[in-house]
């Protein structure tokens, strides 16, 4: 391209102009990310160090709480219960989501007349937002009027079942995405591989677990990671379905729709969520690094 080894004066000036142009092109993205991604991170630290003065416009100022506040919040009950709920929500939605995606995709990966119609139906929940899915599930889960109001293990009001009930709506909402991802992976398996495994006389179950699953395992891993991120960032389900308050995840406490926590606590909890995001991302990079190639 434009890279040359000779360092003549005009060459240098084109390089300078190219650098200028590059930063011109990058400027919008850099400014926006600085304002709405990096600056907020430092602002979270600031917000968690001070107690907001409720009467700021009467001339009061913020009161210094110090790093002790961050430590208190990150070792306190709000964080612990929020992370615990988020973790259980993840453990409920991710395996169920992957299994449902596999089931739908294996069923729809056939050459049959009209298969397109079924594929469209299976992928249809891609069109539903979390808010839509939550309202849709009110028809089933709403404690007084839902169709499943008498199914005690799906009750939103009981601590033992509320999270499972919310999880069902999330699994349904994710079904379209999981189906689409697994189907794409299945369809990428070369026909020769399928034929060879059939000629080897493998039974259906053996073929599925010994040949198909290993071949699509990178896609399944990718899917699992996406679902973990979705679970950590789940919010609307909890606000719309309103499960009992022992089933509130970390993000619910950060957003604090009922206005029960001070800003400094919510900012510190946000830092907790940031650390959690880092841990998940780090794990995903290491996993993907190891497993992303076929047949190693």
């Amino acid at each position, binding site marked *: 391209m434009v890279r040359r080894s000779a360092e003549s004066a005009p060459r240098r000036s084109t390089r300078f102009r190219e650098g200028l142009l590059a930063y011109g092109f990058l400027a919008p993205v850099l400014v926006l990310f600085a304002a*709405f*991604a990096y600056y907020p991170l430092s602002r*979270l630290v600031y917000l968690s160090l001070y107690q907001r003065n409720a009467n700021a416009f009467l001339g009061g100022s913020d009161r210094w709480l110090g790093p002790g506040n961050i430590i208190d919040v990150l070792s306190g009950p709000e964080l612990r219960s929020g992370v615990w709920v988020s973790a259980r929500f993840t453990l409920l939605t991710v395996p169920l989501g992957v299994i449902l995606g596999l089931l739908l995709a294996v069923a729809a990966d056939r050459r049959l007349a009209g298969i397109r119609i*079924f594929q469209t139906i299976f992928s249809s929940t891609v069109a539903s937002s979390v808010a839509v899915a939550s309202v849709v599930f009110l028809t089933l889960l709403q404690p007084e009027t839902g169709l499943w109001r008498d199914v005690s293990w799906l009750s939103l009001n009981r601590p033992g079942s509320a999270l499972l009930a919310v999880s069902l709506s999330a699994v349904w909402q994710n079904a379209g995405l999981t189906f689409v991802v697994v189907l794409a992976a299945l369809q990428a398996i070369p026909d020769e591989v399928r034929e060879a495994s059939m000629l080897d006389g493998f039974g259906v179950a053996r073929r599925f677990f010994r040949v198909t699953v290993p071949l699509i395992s990178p896609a399944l891993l990718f899917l699992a990671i996406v679902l973990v991120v979705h679970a950590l960032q789940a*919010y609307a389900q909890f606000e719309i379905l309103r499960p009992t308050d022992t089933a509130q995840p970390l993000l619910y406490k*950060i957003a604090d729709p009922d206005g029960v926590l001070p800003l400094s606590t919510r900012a510190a909890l946000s830092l907790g969520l940031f650390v959690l995001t880092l841990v998940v991302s780090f794990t995903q990079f290491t996993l993907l690094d190891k497993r992303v190639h076929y047949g190693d």
Partner: protein
Amino acid sequence: MATEHAAATRRRLRNAGSYVLLTVLSAVILFPVYTTIVRAVSEPIPYLKSLQAGGGGLWPVGWDGGVFGRVFRTGDLTHALLLSAIVSVVIVVGQVLTSIFAAYAFACLEFPLKRTMFALVVGTLLLPIEVTLVANIETVRDLGWFNSIQGLSAPFLAWAFGVFLMRQAFLGIPGEMQDAALLDGFSHRRFLFRIAVPICRPIIGSCVLISFLGAWNQYLWPRYAADQQEYQTIQVALRTLATREVTELNFAFAAAIVAAIPLVVLLVAFQRQIIRGLTAGAVKG
């Protein structure tokens, strides 16, 4: 002859089995949609009475097809849909334009600190709106953008994933093509818009669709970046409707169906492109 016949019978049986399985799974996926339609068109009080009397609730009670019209008039749904459309278009245009420029710089230009800049872009994946929500709300208030279209869209105008995908696409353009164009006296800007963007149209198309899906469906940010009803996007309006009395929940159910319709239309029309985008990096909906 006989074995051939037996094989054909077996195949037909297997196909019949497949159809049964596919139909059962479709019913499972569509069941919640069905119950939502039933609740939307039922007259609420007779429906609830029939539930109390031990009815199954699986069929509409009474018929109130007019709920879809009323939800537009009394539920301010028209306004919410319009706001969602405006905010989504602003976000899509912003994300796609800023991504194209940044991606071109990373793919086709040489400049100092390139790797650092790229790391800064990728690093924003660790700072999703869920993490920065509390601080960004403060920023938006400081800017005087609380309850405004700028406030609803500004944090989303740059998109690391879009930069990523488009950089990948631009890297696929042969270097000789760029050399030839530049020798012909094309400026980078002209090369970008006359050649690079048209070549990468399929990927840009996928980006537009995925970006729209995300913008239309987002909930957390619009929920907290505004508190006036005028600035409620359709998703936030759904929640407001869902917190009404149980005798008025039919509005929420009708609105949920209305809110999903634009995306169902998009999904059917652009199935291939959307699936390509989703499988490339599965973003949140």
